């Protein structure tokens, strides 16, 4: 049997039922509670504040320092195949691009120029998620000083861990991926800075 409740007023003010009211000298403010709450709040706000400036859409890249995955595909410009292995001993710049990608077209002249500057380096363009017809038409219009390959099933892209275009992979003479740059290059100087590492 629940004890009959005491007569009730419409307003429940500070009066409590004698049987369950706190000890008379209970602290009026729960200090421990406040400290814990402030710590939790501080942590929460800190975590969210740290996230500012980071790009939530950026995708981690773990192949840095690992051997570049091998591939062999047919060339677009002439009969025959190209495989990564044939550039062994030379640094390789691997650029993933597409005709529907504005920034890729924007950085194209910079890569074209660089391929003339760094004669020792093998420049390879790989077309990502595009049709062969589009690619051929585009290349016929603009011309290109280096090889472009068509990756019909995006197998190379999957192997390299591509997360969008444009992406440029820098591979050293030993066939190790030194880094990947995901933004388009804005100037030849920017490119020069990035390539320095694979030239030694």
């Amino acid at each position, binding site marked *: 049997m629940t004890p009959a409740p005491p007569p009730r007023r419409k307003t429940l003010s500070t009066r409590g039922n004698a049987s369950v009211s706190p000890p008379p000298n209970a602290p009026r403010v729960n200090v421990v509670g406040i400290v814990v709450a402030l710590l939790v709040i501080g942590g929460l706000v800190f975590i969210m504040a740290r996230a500012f400036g980071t790009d939530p859409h950026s995708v981690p890249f773990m192949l840095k320092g*690992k051997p570049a995955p091998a591939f062999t595909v047919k060339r677009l410009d002439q009969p025959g195949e190209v495989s990564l292995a044939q550039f062994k001993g030379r640094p390789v710049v691997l650029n993933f691009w597409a005709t529907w990608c504005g920034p890729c077209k924007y950085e194209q002249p910079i890569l074209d120029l660089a391929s003339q500057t760094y004669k020792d380096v093998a420049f390879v363009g790989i077309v990502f998620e595009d049709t062969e017809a589009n690619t051929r038409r585009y290349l016929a219009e603009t011309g290109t000083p280096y090889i472009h390959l068509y990756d019909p099933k995006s197998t190379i892209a*999957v192997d390299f861990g591509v997360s969008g275009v444009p992406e440029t992979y820098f591979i050293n003479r030993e066939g190790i991926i030194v880094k990947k740059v995901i933004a388009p290059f804005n100037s030849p100087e920017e490119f020069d800075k990035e390539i320095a590492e694979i030239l030694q």
Partner: protein
Amino acid sequence: MIQALLISIVLAQGYAPPRQGQDPLDAEREARVQRIGKLLRCAVCQGVSIADSPASMARAQLDKVRELVVEGKSDDEIFDYFVARYGEWALMEPRKSGVTLGLWVGPLLLLAIGIFLVWMNTSKNAAPAQPAVVASPETEKPAEDEYLAKVRADLEKQ
């Protein structure tokens, strides 16, 4: 006329053409592909798995899973292939170890604390059975329907 041509070009080009994927494997292996695909995150999308995403790249990644399944790789080897490229980010289901352990333990801990608190705050000495209807001499509007309470009382008499 230059303008007139422009509009049709804008509509006809400048889009990523959707590419067709590989045909599914036989039912049993395809089920495995789809199950694994559900657990891997699409590299170019926004937090969807490669089995769910309509993006072409996701289809290419799913094709890779098919390829690895055909090669006879184990589930773990397939996951490792993607983790090697994208890190643990590629796993839709975080691991039950390392930094993501908290995800699995935290809620269980809270659940335990919650149940403990409820247990502590409800009375243990099971009061003798009594019909609920008498228990609340409420004078305010009834939250409980009086007829229902009566039904309960009737039931008890049986």
